[in-house]
């Protein structure tokens, strides 16, 4: 049992030496946690935690005005991990910065936890910001403070007494796995460690929302994995809603429940990962999801081109191979871009069919049987 105890439980357990009498304490903590988790889950059925309504943002620089956000509407549910993806300059950063009003919307409403952020006084806004954590691509740690002092920082801002703040900060550093680095200065930490400190810092005030602006973009793939795993764990354990901004598909695939695609200041698609990745409707989305794709016109040859769409239902059957075997004719795979998400295959593939109409018909029948979505390519 000992080894399955986590963080605070283990501490209590160890401190009490595991006496029978004190097992109750551990159980108590455990029950409390379960209870809170339950409560959070019931909260999820309540109104969305973040509502972005008719959001517009224009920047004026001298003569020019840049429209950074054009009529954005998004609702983010309690407890979800919501991804926002788009190419560089699409307006993603501006969008998250509007959520905590680091950027003042030109028009529209931002409602966070039933509070209209745009209507708050400065004092109320500061209070509201304390219930939202934010992490950044560049970590943005205070360079003259140790890891522990960095985590204490938001607590100091909120007026928590120093000694209390320190205890809480230590807990958080334990959560992010950096207990041994509490006295290290940022310059002595690796990128991944810095981001862990930043995450601990963002969580210090027990925020309901964690905003992440390209939080993993400065990290190598392995470190990215570990940070994403940490975020996922925090989402599940603490029920904190996470908004992730990224230009990397992988990040979205791995941890997001829903995704919004922003292209040229507009929201072009929004839906579950399955919906959006299976069947991107807009060209902007396709371009983002399949950057190498869409060059069909280059293919030459007599046979028809067919685009197959994999929606995650055909994992365990080798579709193409079976089709070739069954119909007794080879096909030419002109292009393929598929992704494995949650062990399901998503993506699309372009194949060139043989010249023989009868064979083609057999192949189409086979695809129908297998319920593969397909369409003819020009």
């Amino acid at each position: 049992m000992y080894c399955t105890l986590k963080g605070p439980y283990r501490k209590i357990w160890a401190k009490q030496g595991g006496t029978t009498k004190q097992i109750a304490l551990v159980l108590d903590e455990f029950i409390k946690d379960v209870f809170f988790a339950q409560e959070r889950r019931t909260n999820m059925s309540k109104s969305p935690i973040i509502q972005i309504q008719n959001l517009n943002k224009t920047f004026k620089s001298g003569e020019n005005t840049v429209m950074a956000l054009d009529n954005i509407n998004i609702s983010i549910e309690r407890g979800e991990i919501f991804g926002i993806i788009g190419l560089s300059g699409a307006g993603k950063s501006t969008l998250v910065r509007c959520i905590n009003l680091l950027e003042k919307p030109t028009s529209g409403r931002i409602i966070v936890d039933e509070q209209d952020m745009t209507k708050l006084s400065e004092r109320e806004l500061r209070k509201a910001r304390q219930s939202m954590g934010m992490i950044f691509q560049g970590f943005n740690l205070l360079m003259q403070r140790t890891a522990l002092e960095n985590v204490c920082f938001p607590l100091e801002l909120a007026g928590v007494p120093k000694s209390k703040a320190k205890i809480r900060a230590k807990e958080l550093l334990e959560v992010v796995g950096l207990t041994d680095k509490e006295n290290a200065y940022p310059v002595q930490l690796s990128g991944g460690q810095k981001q862990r400190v930043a995450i601990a810092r963002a969580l210090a005030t027990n925020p309901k929302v964690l905003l992440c602006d390209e939080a993993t973009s400065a990290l190598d793939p392995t470190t990215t994995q570990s940070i994403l795993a940490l975020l996922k764990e925090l989402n599940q354990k603490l029920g904190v809603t996470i908004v992730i901004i990224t230009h990397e598909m992988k990040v979205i695939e791995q941890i997001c429940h829903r995704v919004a695609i922003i292209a040229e200041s507009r929201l072009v698609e929004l839906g579950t990962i399955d919906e959006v990745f299976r069947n991107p409707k807009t060209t902007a989305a396709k371009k983002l999801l399949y950057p190498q794709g869409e060059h069909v016109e280059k293919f030459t040859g007599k046979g028809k081109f067919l685009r197959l769409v994999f929606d995650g239902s055909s994992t365990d059957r080798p579709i193409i191979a079976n089709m070739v075997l069954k119909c007794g004719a080879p096909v030419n795979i002109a292009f393929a871009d598929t992704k494995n998400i949650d062990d399901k295959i998503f993506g699309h593939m372009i194949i060139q069919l043989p010249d023989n109409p009868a064979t083609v018909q057999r192949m189409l029948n086979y695809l129908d049987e297998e319920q593969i979505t397909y369409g003819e390519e020009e």
Partner: protein
Amino acid sequence: MLSSDMIQLMWIGLLETLYMTVVSTFVAYIIGLPVGLLLYVTDKDGIKPHTAINQIVGGIVNILRSVPFIILLVAVIPITRAIVGTSIGSTATIVPLVIASAPFVARVVESSIKEVDRGVIEASLSMGASTLQVVYKVLVPEALPSLIFGAAIATTTILGYSAMSGFVGGGGLGTIAINYGYYRSQSDVMLVMVALLVLIVQIFQEIGTWISKKCDKRIK
């Protein structure tokens, strides 16, 4: 050889110079530090942009900075008299020294604060920091090494000014250099004065650099 009276005089001059320099620098920082912070904060890219305040304060700073010290020294004599009661001696010299160096200090402070990473300021705002909290919990501590380095520069500049004030009876090493080294052509006195001034500048600069490095946690 220098007479023992001369050495006695130089010793007093040295103490006077140190007294003027240290007190003036201190007072200049009491004024210049908040003004420098104000200039940064109210800048159009600052955390609380305020064009009017920024331009008025910035304007005053620029005007004071553009008056050559030797002219300012004479020009502010009425003010000095009003405050100290006399315009002669090292205490009186502190007044023009402060008036001349506070705007300089303000700019030095402003430029140190500008080195603070925008991202860090942004992050603290995102955590709900007020403008004042950003100033004293982020800007000053994060810029501290640079502020200390700047203070060393300010101190040595003020030391130079204090020597100049010797021309109008400001006291200290400057006065001795002018009275003995220049008017009485005692080149040995002049030489010792120059050597002493160079030495003090070196010491202040070295100490400043050392403390600045010592407190900078960005150095591994």
